[in-house]
């Protein structure tokens, strides 16, 4: 089946996730869809597989325009997508998951299901026990199950979203071997990834997306530098950077480990000095968030120690971190940082110390007015935060921070902001730095990391793989390190 996407547009609010994307997929090939986080890869594939609707454009299968309104409809046309987090039912057994979505017959025929499952799995070199509950499988095995399930449902176009995240090396080999076999058998495979290595190893053609647009289409073999440049745009050469005087160490980590269900951040040893800016680079979900939350006291270290200005904070609660002058600003400003439905003044009343029990709203409004002025927020004290633009939300968050901060932890400080807002946010951050606040931030923008940091941490798969001095690093090198090369 030939698949054509024509001039697909999709906006989320003011963000254009797909801005007129064209893509043609022919039978029997493995396609790569490459781009950094937020480039629009997943959105495009979710549109093709019916998980998202689109604003304009058209989808053609074998030169016929089709309407895909749901994942079930896409499956009927033969398009199936393996999501980044497998959409299975952990409480059910493998065979029960396999049988879900079968449209024929009412009776749940487990025996026939098992036979079919075995046949499909053997054909692809997969191996799992059909009676095991899915909750006991590894991520890689759950992926395999999902692939088998989709194929058994008659999928001709198989889309995989970041399939190599969180699986072992041997599972990766098995997966790649299976995908190659499928392509040889005439299926179309689409691999969504931001890992250069995956693309180079597997895909015969690659389409590169940046900021919702197709910026290049290449056929194998690829030049790594070419791919990096297309992914991240023009990479500027090293810029001279102002030196700032650093103070005493404020944050010290000794063999610091944090764990989450899917990800375990392995031991980090690091010392951060007052006024130092550290950028954290890496593919999203490589442990940056876990690391920042661990430093903020939101997650207890599973082993190792964390010291703030010499005090051992390893077993202290979040509230204690806050009172020691630690602040954490999450990536989702409106979901985690601010409270929709409340006004700027109300946020000020809640976040500053020493608000009296009986509220003095007039006084707070005046205070907020002056902060609005000094932080250049476009809005009124009585504006509800959800009506602020992204840049104003970020400046508002910064305006609520206490006067004296030891350590500021930020995820994606300028994500979604325009150039002007980005500059003003960094002006505010650098002022903090001059006051002696150490800043740790994660970002998908390599230029931002290289330009703003003193040192750079690179994370991949829950490992802090490298610490580098920013002045000795170019965005190009950084891009390759993230892509899993040139460590």
């Amino acid at each position, binding site marked *: 089946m030939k698949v054509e996407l024509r001039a697909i547009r999709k906006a989320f609010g003011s963000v254009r996730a797909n801005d007129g994307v064209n893509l043609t997929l022919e039978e029997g090939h493995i396609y790569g869809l490459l781009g950094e986080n937020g480039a629009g890869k997943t959105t495009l594939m979710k549109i093709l597989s019916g998980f998202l609707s689109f604003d304009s454009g058209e989808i053609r299968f074998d030169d016929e325009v089709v309407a895909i309104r749901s994942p079930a409809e896409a499956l009927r046309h033969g398009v199936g997508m393996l999501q980044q987090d497998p959409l299975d039912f952990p409480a059910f057994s493998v065979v029960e998951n396999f049988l879900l979505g079968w449209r024929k017959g009412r009776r749940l025929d487990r025996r026939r299901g098992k036979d079919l499952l075995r046949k499909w799995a053997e054909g692809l070199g997969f191996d799992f026990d059909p009676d095991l509950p899915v909750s006991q499988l590894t991520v890689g095995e759950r992926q395999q199950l999902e692939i088998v399930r989709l194929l058994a449902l008659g999928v001709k176009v198989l889309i995989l979203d970041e399939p190599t995240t969180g699986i072992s090396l041997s599972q990766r080999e098995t997966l790649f071997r299976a995908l190659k076999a499928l392509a040889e058998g005439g299926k179309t495979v689409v691999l969504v990834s931001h890992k250069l290595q995956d693309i180079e190893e597997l895909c015969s053609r690659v389409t590169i997306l940046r900021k919702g647009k197709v910026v290049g289409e290449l056929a194998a073999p690829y030049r790594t530098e070419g791919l990096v440049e297309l992914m991240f745009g023009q990479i500027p050469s090293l810029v001279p950077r102002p030196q700032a005087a650093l103070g005493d160490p404020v944050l010290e980590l000794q063999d610091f480990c944090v764990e989450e269900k899917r990800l375990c951040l392995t031991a980090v040893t690091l010392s951060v000095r007052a006024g130092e800016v550290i950028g954290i680079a890496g593919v999203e979900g490589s442990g940056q968030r876990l690391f920042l939350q661990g430093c903020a006291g*939101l997650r207890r270290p599973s082993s190792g120690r964390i010291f703030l200005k010499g005090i051992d904070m390893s077993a202290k609660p*979040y*509230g204690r971190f*806050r009172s020691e002058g630690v602040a*954490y600003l*999450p990536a989702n400003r409106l*979901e*985690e*940082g*601010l*409270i*929709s*439905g*409340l006004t700027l003044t*109300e946020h000020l*009343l*809640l*976040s500053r110390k020493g*608000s*009296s*029990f*009986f*509220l003095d709203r007039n006084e707070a409004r005046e205070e907020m007015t002056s902060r609005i002025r000094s932080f250049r927020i476009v809005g009124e004290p009585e504006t509800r935060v959800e009506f602020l633009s992204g840049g104003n939300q970020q400046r508002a968050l910064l305006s609520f921070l206490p006067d004296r901060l030891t350590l500021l932890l930020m995820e994606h400080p300028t994500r979604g902001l325009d150039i002007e807002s980005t500059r003003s946010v960094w002006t505010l951050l650098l002022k903090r730095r001059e006051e002696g606040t150490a800043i740790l931030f994660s970002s998908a923008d390599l230029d931002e990391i290289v330009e703003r940091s003193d040192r750079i941490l690179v994370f991949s798969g829950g490992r802090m793989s490298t610490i580098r001095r920013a002045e000795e690093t170019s965005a190009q090198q950084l891009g390759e390190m993230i892509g899993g090369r040139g460590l």
Partner: protein
Amino acid sequence: MRMEKVLANRLLQLLLPFSLALLFTSLVLLWAGASPIEAYGNMLRGAFGSREKWADVLVAWVPLVLCGMGLAFTFTAGLWNIGIEGQMILGAIGATWVVRLLQLPSYLLLPASILSSLLAGALWSLVAGILRIYGKVHEIFAGLGLNFLAIGLTNYLIFGPWKQPGTATMSGTEVFPSQAQLPNFGGLALGPVEIGIAGMAIGLTAILLRGTLFGLKLNAIGRNRHAAFLMGLRIDRNLFTALALAGGMAGIAGGIQALGLFHRLIPSISSGYGYLAILVVLLTGSRVLWIAPVAFFFAAVIKGSLQLPIEMHLDSSLGGVLQGALVLSVMLFRGLQSRMLKEKE
């Protein structure tokens, strides 16, 4: 232009659903072979036909308002305090316990038993809170379970340790001595203490929720618990406080049922007012000043519908049909409205 829009919105939010509910109830009445106009006339007379009837409406209004105010706290904090019914029952038990325990003059006994009803309701709500916060049991299920436990406890007490001398009966415990009965306005079921307490509850709730940092914190927690936590708010403590306030107010409502109305502990001491108050708060949200009038309307419907069996041989549960239809249609219109807004975007 903007005023018109606001007005149109109000109309959509109130008048339309109200008409829809009336229409639905009228259809039910017609189906039962009765004249809707006659039925509504009877309900009006049943609610406001005489001094006594006015008083009866207020007797139902007081517990509805107390529970409604309590629920305003938990609602603001984002908790579904279904356990309000059980908290009310425990309040009645708490009051009865003090009445049976202490031999005191009225001016000491009544405050003591009202205080006891407050504490009993608050403690019962904290059980739900502990289950919620430390046991990860959703408060809806915790509350529902505790409601059944509270009913069981009442029946056990009435048929066991607190049974009437001689034989235990469904009619409840022994009647309280006169010093344990709330005073009333000459011959009416209503007294000054109940009205005073309801008024104080309204005032206290309005001030706490609208004018204090505590109210603002509950609001923040209710809207986004995670963000509130990141902002440094103490979530558990505030949720417990909200629950305790709700339980305390519901407890007093139960205490008043025992001390002021039934003068004893009976099996269905709460009259279902806790659940009804949940409907009231569903209609008003936690807008405190709306709770009182809506509760009044509900109370009038309850008392007014009692007239139906007497005058027209209809079942008084028609009042419930009207209340239920009203809540459902208001929610329906709210849903439709937000859907329209979404589609406009």
